[in-house]
């Protein structure tokens, strides 16, 4: 069902409805991966799903050449604006299939299959709300908010892009936002940047998801928005929205572990890893249902009667202020510079955005390229959040790094 709710582009103020988007939608007959810079760029493709088609949405900053080739080999045309790179193994679309990308155990993104139905996990009637959606397009959290606006009456959306998060409060006030779902990094940045002004925004619902949620940020939000319900959600592409906690505390009660309740996910901790068997599961890349226990790749531990979910067991994907960055894509870009011999890219803890991209670089023989040159060069080729802001020039490639294929 398409609810004719409003969708507002926070950057331009442009307002439209899902009904209008559906009317204008032009379905593509072949599986399509839409590579988008902005949330609103993906909406026509989402609306076109009403008439079938097979869709994957990926943020431009997340797509490296290896992923692009994987998708084309898997039958996807890559569409970025007017540019189309055709599939190398064309096939017919599986009507209604929606693909999400998640990090596999090897660190390479893998595809998880859903439908608009399996992504829509909200049940029952909801009070009318205007939601701010600050998530990176194509992520599970983004799809959660998008399907809420698409399918649940009275749920309007204001889409703000990760690049515009410094200024989200102004459009939120202008468009009457009453509910905001964001990552803990998003909320930390908001509390630090807009602390005193937040009381102007009469939120009814504050939701956190997409990253580990700690007690400090929950407490700060409860104090900043005393009239709002503060909730955190554990969700992923593979297991859907599996844990929802409304009591303002980090973690979930240990009593929820290993409990079988019809229609609800079964939660376990195995060897320090959160394991979930979920009714909201997706399919794997071959289309097989992931009905069994899924190792989430997230670390979990029990403390004071609560099960705390503390972070990824692997660290191959960076989250810069809510935007996902592929370490490999940035490293590939730096290493494509004609005067760069070697580059290693990693995340470094930083205020406001949580993590920043930093790099170690070795220049080629005879080159005098410096860190500022490379930052400027990268800034012309990468989304702002993916640009390495601190580049350390090394005299030679570290010996231990030459033994690794992916640093």
């Amino acid at each position, binding site marked *: 069902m398409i609810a004719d709710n409003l969708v507002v582009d926070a950057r331009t103020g442009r307002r439209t409805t899902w009904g209008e988007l559906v009317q204008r939608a032009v379905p593509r007959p072949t599986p399509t991966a839409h590579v988008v810079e902005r949330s609103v760029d993906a909406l026509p493709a989402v609306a076109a799903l009403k008439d079938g088609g097979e869709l994957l949405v990926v943020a431009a900053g997340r797509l490296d050449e290896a992923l692009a080739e994987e998708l084309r080999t898997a039958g996807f045309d890559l569409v970025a604006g007017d540019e189309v790179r055709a599939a190398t193994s064309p096939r017919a679309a599986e009507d209604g299939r929606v693909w999400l990308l998640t990090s596999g155990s090897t660190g390479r993104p893998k595809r998880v299959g859903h439908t608009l139905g399996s992504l829509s996990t909200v049940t029952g009637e909801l009070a009318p709300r205007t939601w701010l959606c600050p998530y990176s397009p194509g992520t599970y959290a983004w799809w959660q908010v998008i399907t809420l606006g698409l399918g649940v009456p009275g749920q309007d959306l204001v889409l703000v892009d990760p690049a515009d998060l*410094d200024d989200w409060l102004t459009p939120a006030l202008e468009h009457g936002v009453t509910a905001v779902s964001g990552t803990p990094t998003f909320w930390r940045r908001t509390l630090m940047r807009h602390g*005193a002004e937040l009381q102007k925004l009469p939120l009814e619902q504050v939701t956190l998801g997409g990253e580990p949620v700690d007690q*400090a940020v929950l407490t700060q939000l409860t104090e900043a928005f005393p009239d709002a319900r503060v909730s955190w959600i554990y969700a992923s592409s593979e297991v859907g929205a599996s844990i929802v906690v409304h009591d303002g505390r980090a973690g979930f009660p240990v009593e929820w572990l290993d409990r079988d309740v019809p229609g609800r996910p079964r939660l376990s901790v195995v060897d320090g890893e959160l394991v979930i068997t979920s009714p909201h599961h997706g399919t794997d890349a071959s289309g097989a249902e992931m009905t069994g226990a899924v190792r989430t790749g997230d670390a979990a531990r029990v403390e004071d009667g609560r099960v705390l979910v503390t972070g990824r067991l692997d660290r191959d994907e960076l989250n810069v202020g809510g935007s996902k960055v592929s370490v490999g894509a940035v490293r590939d870009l730096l290493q494509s510079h004609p005067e760069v011999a070697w580059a290693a890219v990693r995340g470094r*803890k*930083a*205020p406001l955005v949580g993590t920043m991209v930093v790099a170690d670089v070795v220049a080629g023989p005879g080159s005098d390229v410096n860190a500022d040159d490379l930052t400027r060069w990268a800034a012309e080729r990468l989304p702002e959040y993916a640009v390495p802001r601190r580049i350390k020039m090394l005299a030679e490639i570290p010996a231990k790094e030459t033994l690794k294929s992916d640093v």
Partner: protein
Amino acid sequence: METLDRPAVRKLMAEVVAVQGKTLPDDDTAKLADIGFRSLDFSELALRVEDEIGDELNFEAAGLRSIETIGDVLDLLVEIQGQ
């Protein structure tokens, strides 16, 4: 532990904007929004300060505040060093 005074932090801030081809205004009341100094720039500045002083900054000590001007940034980064 070494600490940076306000002029030293201001110099680092000028370096951050210089990479983008911009000049930092002399006026501490200049609005960050007007000079295009965004969260990523602030974060980069914090890392530069950390590299200079050889220690991690503790932003939890900063408390709730609004950061709108060059002066707000300088006040914060001078205040939280060593906390």
